[in-house]
């Protein structure tokens, strides 16, 4: 908004007591001890030019009076409001077990600092519940620290809900070869306690994994409870927006004074036929914030927000990058490199069009495949990669769990 010329008063409200910080290191170098949690504070040109109301949660929204109700009993009035209340870690299904000493999740700075302390104390065994990106990153950190670790997930391979088994299997192999005890097709049932502390995971098949640390990595829940009663269309999946980023009410009418951005915003993506998606990606949070910032500052609406989703995940020293959304893919092809070399690019297709690409240690090739996604080019891509000029592509089922 400042860059777009808005020079009026700005208040930034946050339930955490910290200025904005960078989350990706929390599940990586903060856990290894290479970085303390507090150095993750982000560069910002805002400085003291805004009013920071930190450590105060928003608890309600009254759109008629244009006020936000606060946890400390106060209120904040607005001319324009941005909803960027994000997500929190999805808690373990049984509250009492989730509160046991020794059970952790990672979302905020304090979570990461607490888990770091626990890992540094040299636990005998770590159980990571959930083999999504965060779970895989934490498991890799444990191996970097020399800690025995089990990675537990009901899917057949790590990340397979997002990238499918065809691409997930070779990534799982990398973790296995680094010493991670992969427990795929295994569902955690109970977190057991002994002397009031977490002592192990009981799987649905009756197997017990003894561990003194559990990391619950079951994804995120969107922080929308405070919007109850506001009349906005919001649920645990996010707050709905129109194509520009203005939030809509239960009858689909946009509120011209309120926009949403980041993890919490569910918006119609032009690349996916206008289907509403909420993206938990770092780059998306940056790009969409810039988009709605201009909007709230009064700039012309221009084109709908249409940035192509992309993200990265660093797992040990392996980098997994992705462009587009794999959801609904009916085919995948390794177009570049070789999974055996731990270095490849996979392109996903849906109904004969390229919809996503995943690159493992192949960042320099991703932009080329990214263009296939942006233009919804025909799948399979017909062009030979230069490391396989005359090989034909092996088209496979993505194998989503």
């Amino acid at each position, binding site marked *: 908004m400042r860059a777009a010329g808005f020079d009026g008063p700005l208040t930034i409200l946050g339930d955490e007591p910290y200025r904005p910080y960078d989350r990706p290191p929390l599940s990586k170098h903060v856990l290894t001890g*290479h*970085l303390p949690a507090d150095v993750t*504070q982000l560069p910002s040109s805002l400085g003291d030019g805004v009013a920071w109301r930190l450590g105060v949660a928003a608890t309600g929204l009254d759109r008629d009076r244009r006020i936000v109700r606060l946890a400390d009993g106060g209120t904040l009035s607005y001319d324009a409001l941005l909803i960027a209340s994000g997500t929190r870690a999805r808690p373990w299904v049984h509250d009492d077990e989730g509160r046991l000493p020794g059970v952790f999740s990672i979302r905020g700075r304090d979570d990461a600092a607490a888990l770091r302390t626990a890992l540094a104390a040299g636990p005998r065994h770590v159980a990571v519940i959930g083999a999504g990106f965060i779970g895989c990153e934490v498991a890799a950190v444990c191996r970097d620290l020399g800690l025995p670790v089990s990675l537990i997930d009901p899917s057949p391979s790590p990340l397979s809900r997002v990238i499918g088994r065809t691409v997930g299997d070779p990534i799982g192999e990398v973790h296995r070869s680094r010493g991670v005890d992969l427990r795929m097709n295994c569902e955690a049932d109970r977190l057991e306690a002994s002397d009031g502390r977490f002592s192990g995971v009981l799987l649905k098949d009756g197997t017990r994994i003894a561990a003194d640390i559990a990391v619950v990595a079951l994804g995120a829940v969107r922080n929308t409870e405070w919007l109850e009663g506001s009349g906005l269309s919001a649920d645990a999946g996010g707050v709905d927006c129109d194509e520009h980023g203005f939030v809509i009410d239960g009858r689909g009418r946009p509120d011209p004074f309120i926009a949403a951005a980041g993890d919490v915003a569910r918006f119609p993506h032009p690349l996916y036929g206008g289907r509403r998606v909420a993206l938990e990606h770092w780059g998306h949070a940056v790009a969409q914030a810039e988009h709605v910032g201009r909007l709230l500052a009064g700039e012309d609406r221009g084109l709908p927000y249409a940035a192509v989703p992309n993200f990265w995940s660093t797992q040990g020293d392996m980098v997994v990058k992705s462009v587009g959304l794999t959801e609904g893919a009916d085919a995948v092809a390794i177009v570049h490199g070789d999974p055996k070399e731990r270095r490849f690019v996979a392109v996903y297709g849906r109904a004969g069009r390229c919809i996503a690409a995943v690159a493992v240690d192949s960042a320099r090739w991703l932009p080329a495949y990214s263009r296939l996604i942006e233009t919804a080019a025909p799948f399979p891509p017909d062009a030979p990669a230069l490391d396989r000029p005359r090989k034909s592509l092996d088209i496979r089922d993505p194998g989503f769990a």
Partner: protein
Amino acid sequence: MPDPATRPVTNPLRVNVDLNLCQAYAQCCYAAPRHFRIDGREALFYDPAPSAEARADIERARISCPVQAIRVEDPGL
């Protein structure tokens, strides 16, 4: 690379790299070897809060990044 976890830093610079953009050209690692490192083939690890004395090298790193992925805030300027 000094250990950012233990060394005291007053009034540090703030550095952030857009790792979506990063393609591991490693120019930052040559420009400011104490603050940027590549692990494996392309996993960049960097110091998000280098001391202000490193300003010149951090600036070399920022400006030489082929994909312009490095953002720096310098509270001293």
